[in-house]
């Protein structure tokens, strides 16, 4: 029996009201169609291709429609998950999209980059039944399916906007958090200006997350949506330097400000050799490759990037995976991923780790660099590492990696990408008096994302440290609601 026949049979049972949980459990979890690893190594197109309609409806029928909907507790923006999935099963994709859009503004983005396996899909009853989170209903893929269906209809109407309040909101940073704040505050009838430091809006979605994971066209559609709603976007504006927050409020008459300026200074390992040519922070490497399109250097793009043969990427998060997989696409023959704990402790999404392995990236787990070795003219030639073993759990609950003395070994590489996280961006703190920061330089906010300054709110990486797109969006939601409330009283 092929997929279509299976679906027809199940739909018939479903219609007759005799589809039992056991039938649902028997539906095979739908695999995501994807580009062949050997092919995708040489292009920057999207890896995951998206469910077909048949696949989406089959996957949707796997959902048990639990009364208590445990999945929602895992969603930072509380999407009515079982409701939209029920609509997919019935083939009502527009209704499904409408349900998602009540809570999430960027479903095409979140369906692609959310870490669902630790959020909505973690408490899923189906996954629990099989004792395997990978067998949970693929909520993220279904979200993406619906969002992409909607994109194809080109019928996305702008959300309704309340009558003008005459109040002005400045949103600093056009990343995922800023986009959400702009949308939600604009809906309430305020006059919104988004200020972006780069020459292009989108934040981490355009400079960081690679095209093969999140096509830039999708981000652009979201930005176009903002413009259509009447949100003004000003690029090449660095908050704190072009204008201070104080000036925005006192001189330019903004009634509220949202700070969503994103990631800050990249962390380095503070080991010998980090100033050698060929050592990059992941931020720099990805920005060159993505935003500046260094993969087209010599073919129109002016920003160069190392033409690497052998690359070591240090770190175990999504950014490390993105860097390693970008290196492959830039033509590296060998890419090594060096991580000081074991695979189990890796913060990267399982899917990204899986994709990286499929693309031939060599994992060196329980290894950590000791120094980077260079030639006489200062170019990276090798990385010396130490072997590690796992000791007692540390403050993060993960087992602490302990170096094994005398276990040094070297790998010949010409490029090293350091992907071990970011500190806070110091610019806002340096230029905003009265703004309370924590000891790491991140902005301190209350449960409504309000800072120590009246009318000033913040969220995303500048508050959380390195976080995710969805967490930034979740905070954006919270902040926007608080801003709308604040402006009502003002």
């Amino acid at each position, binding site marked *: 029996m092929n997929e279509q026949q299976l679906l027809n049979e199940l739909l018939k049972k479903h219609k007759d009201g005799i589809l039992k949980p056991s039938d649902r459990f028997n539906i095979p979890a739908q695999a995501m169609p994807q580009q062949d690893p050997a092919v995708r190594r040489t292009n920057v197109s999207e890896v995951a291709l998206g469910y077909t309609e048949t696949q989406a409806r089959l996957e949707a029928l796997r959902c048990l429609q639990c009364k208590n909907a445990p999945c929602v507790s895992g969603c930072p923006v509380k999407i009515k998950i079982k409701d939209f999935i029920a609509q997919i099963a019935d083939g009502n994709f527009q209704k499904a999209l409408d349900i998602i859009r009540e809570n999430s503004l960027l479903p095409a983005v979140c369906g692609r980059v959310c870490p669902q396996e630790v959020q909505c899909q973690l408490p899923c009853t189906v996954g629990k039944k099989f004792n395997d989170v990978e067998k949970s209903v693929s909520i993220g893929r279904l979200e993406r399916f619906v969002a992409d269906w909607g994109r194809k209809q080109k019928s996305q109407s702008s959300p309704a906007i309340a009558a003008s309040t005459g109040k002005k909101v400045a949103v600093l940073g056009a990343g995922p958090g800023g986009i959400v704040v702009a949308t939600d505050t604009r809906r309430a009838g305020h006059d919104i200006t988004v200020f972006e430091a780069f020459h292009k809006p989108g934040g981490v979605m355009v400079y960081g997350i690679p095209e093969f994971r999140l096509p830039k066209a999708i981000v652009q559609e979201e930005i176009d949506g903002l413009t259509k709603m009447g949100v003004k976007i000003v690029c090449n504006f*660095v908050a704190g330097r*072009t204008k201070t927050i104080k000036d925005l409020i006192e001189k330019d008459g903004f009634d509220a400000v949202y700070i969503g300026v994103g990631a800050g200074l990249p962390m380095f390992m503070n080991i010998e050799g980090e100033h050698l040519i060929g050592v990059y922070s992941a931020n720099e490497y990805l920005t060159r490759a993505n935003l500046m399109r260094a993969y087209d250097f010599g073919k129109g793009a002016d920003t160069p990037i190392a033409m690497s043969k052998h690359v070591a990427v240090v770190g175990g998060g999504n950014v490390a995976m993105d860097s390693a997989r970008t290196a492959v696409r830039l033509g590296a023959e060998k890419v090594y991923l060096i991580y000081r704990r074991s695979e189990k402790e890796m913060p990267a999404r399982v899917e990204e780790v899986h994709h990286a392995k499929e693309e031939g990236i060599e994992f060196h787990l329980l290894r950590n660099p000791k120094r980077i070795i260079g030639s006489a003219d200062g170019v990276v030639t090798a990385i010396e590492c130490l072997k590690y073993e796992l000791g007692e759990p540390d403050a993060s609950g993960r087992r602490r990696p302990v170096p094994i003395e005398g276990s040094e070994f070297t790998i010949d590489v010409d490029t090293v990408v350091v992907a071990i996280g970011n500190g806070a961006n110091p610019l806002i703190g340096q230029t905003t008096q009265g703004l309370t920061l924590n000891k790491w330089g991140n902005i301190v906010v209350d449960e409504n994302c309000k800072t120590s300054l009246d009318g000033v709110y913040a969220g995303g990486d500048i508050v959380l440290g390195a976080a995710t797109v969805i967490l930034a969006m979740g905070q954006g939601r919270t902040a926007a609601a608080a801003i709308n409330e604040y402006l009502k009283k003002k």
Partner: protein
Amino acid sequence: MSHKILSKQQLCQNVYTADIVAPLVAAAAKPGQFVIVCLKGSYSERIPLTIAGCDIKKGTIRLIWQAVGKSTLEFGDINVGEDVENILGPLGRPTHIENFGTVVCVGGGIGNAPLLPIATGMKKAGNRVISIIGARTKDLLILEDDFKVISDELIVVTDDGSYGRKALVTQPLEEACKKSPKPGLAVVIGPTIMMKFCCATTKKYDVPTVVSLNTIMIDGTGMCGGCRVEVGGQTKFVCVDGPEFDGHKVNFDLMMRRMQAYKKQEQQAIEEYKHKCQIGLNK
């Protein structure tokens, strides 16, 4: 917002100056700060250039740049009346200006451009300003007249002796350091190698020295880390911690090496650009 070029001039071989509309930058800029120019959007490079002056009333900034790479060559080929798509700024911490007594301002080559607003600021703050400006040869010397106006003493040197004194800037700098009263501060901006030797000179006389670094950058706002330098044994970021640092603590050797990172690709880009221009001319 695009940025119209209101006037443009070739100061000497490969060195251009232009007044460009950028009202937000002009209103906020202070001596020592820089901008990032991205000529045309996503396929253009982002290039950091120090602000050489600004006119708040007209809403313009003055940039002076040397056409040494593809992007700076292309910038030089943009005509008056045309636009630059993106200018971000002002970036970096402004120069700390106060009355130090005597300030020696040392500029080499294109470094004279960012030095001028700093020297001007120092003069306004009541300092006695000794300016030492140099170039390889007479034709490459820029801004002499401007420095004449704001300096209490101006010393011009050329490497080949074709103009002014035949000397490296370090010689008059050493003489200035020996004078009594000793300068309260030296500000040195120019090629990395020049800054390195100037700092070695002032160190001998214990004259505090500020240098302004112009490293490779992408975002310029404290995100990418490409501009990192070693200062006093610690990693610092030119874009947010600088661009000015205590010259006696900067590891110039490391910095010089890192500046060479893309030499090959830069050469390739220049050749392709020149080739394209040639084809254009033949049409």
